[in-house]
């Protein structure tokens, strides 16, 4: 007897018949850098491949340092943009790069958000806003509607709010110190925002506990939530297994990074994750 897996349709790579060569690196020159806040810097990179979808990511290698996954915060003719938060050795070194320097890319990898519904609520926290602002651009340029709900410690740390407003997208802001918008966490606003009942679906990216709360609220209120996850990644294309979500065996890199919220609730999402060794640890 063969068990039918609920995740069958998740393996986006079946029958894709990519070539092994597509898992090699291509150099990309930095065209422009922009400081987004004290921690996050955006890089416009020369890029001539097919246009990646919001939610897809690249593996970004800085020779001499590590290779790290980075979502796209924008993309267009001849460029992609990544928005890098300074979190450790590699991202710190990335912050030191300037126009004309090069990074090395593999990708785009992953499935990306589905943007078919409208209006959408986009809920971001920290650098998790990166894929959301790219999604917002795609939505608004294709005539859809969305609201950008974002939080930060203080006004100065808010990400992409001006960019969203510049595209005419309604933005709702929460700051912990109350220096702009609501004083508190985005998760405080979710419930009431969803209650308004306007949204066909929610896209979210940010700290896992935040996403967990968003998913829970969405499921409770019967609204589909797509959450873009992070897990420790080594290969980025589904071979090593390090980015797995237990116990369903979903790979964040190639079955995700975007998953349906109700599927995620059948996993360790919000509870546990795997470290570089594969060891399972409590999410904190």
């Amino acid at each position, binding site marked *: *007897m*063969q*068990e*039918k*897996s609920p*995740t*069958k349709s998740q*393996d*986006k*790579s*079946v*029958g*894709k*018949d*990519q*070539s*092994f*060569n*597509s*898992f*090699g*690196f291509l*150099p990309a020159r930095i065209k422009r850098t922009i400081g987004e806040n004290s921690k996050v810097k955006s890089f416009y990179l020369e890029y001539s491949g097919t246009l990646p979808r919001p939610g897809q990511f690249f*593996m970004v*290698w800085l*020779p*001499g340092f*590590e*290779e*790290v996954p980075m979502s796209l915060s924008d993309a267009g003719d001849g460029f992609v943009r990544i928005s890098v938060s300074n979190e450790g050795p590699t991202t710190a070194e990335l912050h030191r790069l300037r126009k004309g320097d*090069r990074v*090395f890319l*593999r990708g785009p990898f992953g499935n990306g958000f589905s943007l078919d519904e409208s209006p959408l609520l986009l809920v971001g926290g920290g650098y998790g806003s990166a894929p959301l602002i790219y999604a917002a651009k795609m939505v608004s340029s294709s005539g859809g509607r969305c609201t950008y709900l974002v939080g930060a410690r203080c006004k100065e740390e808010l990400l992409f709010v001006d960019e969203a407003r510049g595209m005419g997208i309604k933005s709702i802001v929460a700051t912990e110190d109350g220096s702009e918008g609501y004083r508190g966490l985005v998760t405080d606003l979710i419930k009431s925002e969803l209650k308004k009942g306007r949204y066909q679906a929610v896209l979210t990216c940010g700290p896992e506990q935040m996403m967990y709360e968003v998913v829970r609220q969405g499921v409770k209120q019967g609204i589909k939530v797509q959450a873009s996850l992070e897990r420790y990644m*080594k*290969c980025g*294309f*589904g*071979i*090593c*297994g*390090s980015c*797995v*979500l*237990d*116990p*369903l*065996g979903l*790979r964040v890199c190639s079955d995700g990074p975007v998953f349906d919220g109700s599927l995620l609730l059948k996993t360790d999402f919000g509870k546990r994750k*795997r*470290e*570089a*060794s*594969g*060891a*399972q640890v409590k999410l904190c």
Partner: protein
Amino acid sequence: MLKIKLGKIKMRNPLMLASGILCNGSLLKRAATEGGAGAVVTKSLTKEVREGYHTPVVVGVEGGLINAVGLANPGYKAYLAEDLPLAKKGRAPVIVSVAGRNVEEFEEISVAAAEAGADAVELNLSCPHVNKHGMEIGADPATVAKIVEGVREALEIPVYVKLGLSDRFTESAVSAQDAGADAVVAINTVKAMAIDVEARKPVLANIYGGLSGPAIHPIALRCVFELYQKLSIPIIGCGGVSDWRTALDFLMAGASAVQVGSTLAVKGIGIFREIEAGIKNYLVRNQFRSVEEVIGIAHR
């Protein structure tokens, strides 16, 4: 028609997931249920937890992958406690890959694996890019004998030995057989590297890695063919299986089963079913009643 018996182990088809691919318990389950693998092999487990090497740990090249994951694993205790049970839910035999630094470690981990419910152990004597855990073991027939004897005595379940390409490859295999191994897995990755000409640097953080994928298939096929002339225990072919033809040529060269690894990166988890269908089709078309009839047929 595709069912095989590998010693005590019954498989619904001769296709196994290779060690280190997908690797965690829940993905091994998925390889069996969704993917259709006849058996699955775990990541090679070491005594202590290993983070593995810094990234990049794997890179695509023409015809394959080069990896230097560095035997990342949570240590055998954690893996056997948390991942093995998940893997077993796939209802296909689960073979635990073991990477020790000496006879004692191989024994300790293998015994624990057997106790935890492993259907067999596969001794990794051939990682081309990790010191002490590496090729130097499998390339020396005497060391091979010592390790296999040790593990064999301590265990009830089948013991497989995974060898890599080396000058004394067949000698090592014979030595493993004489020491009581139940099967030989051939081959592991081949030591290689990639340099990015724009970066002017080796790509892998570890510089050296192991080449896998279609690129090494003709080499692996040769190894299996040679072994079939020397061994009486079953051979498991590994290296560059990418479709039913490359699985079938392994069988014809003398392999009783084959492992599939890198190809999952380009063809997805469903590759096992695809290969199974291709082989079945071939067997029917050529009036074979069972896949066992083609094993070693290229020698006749």
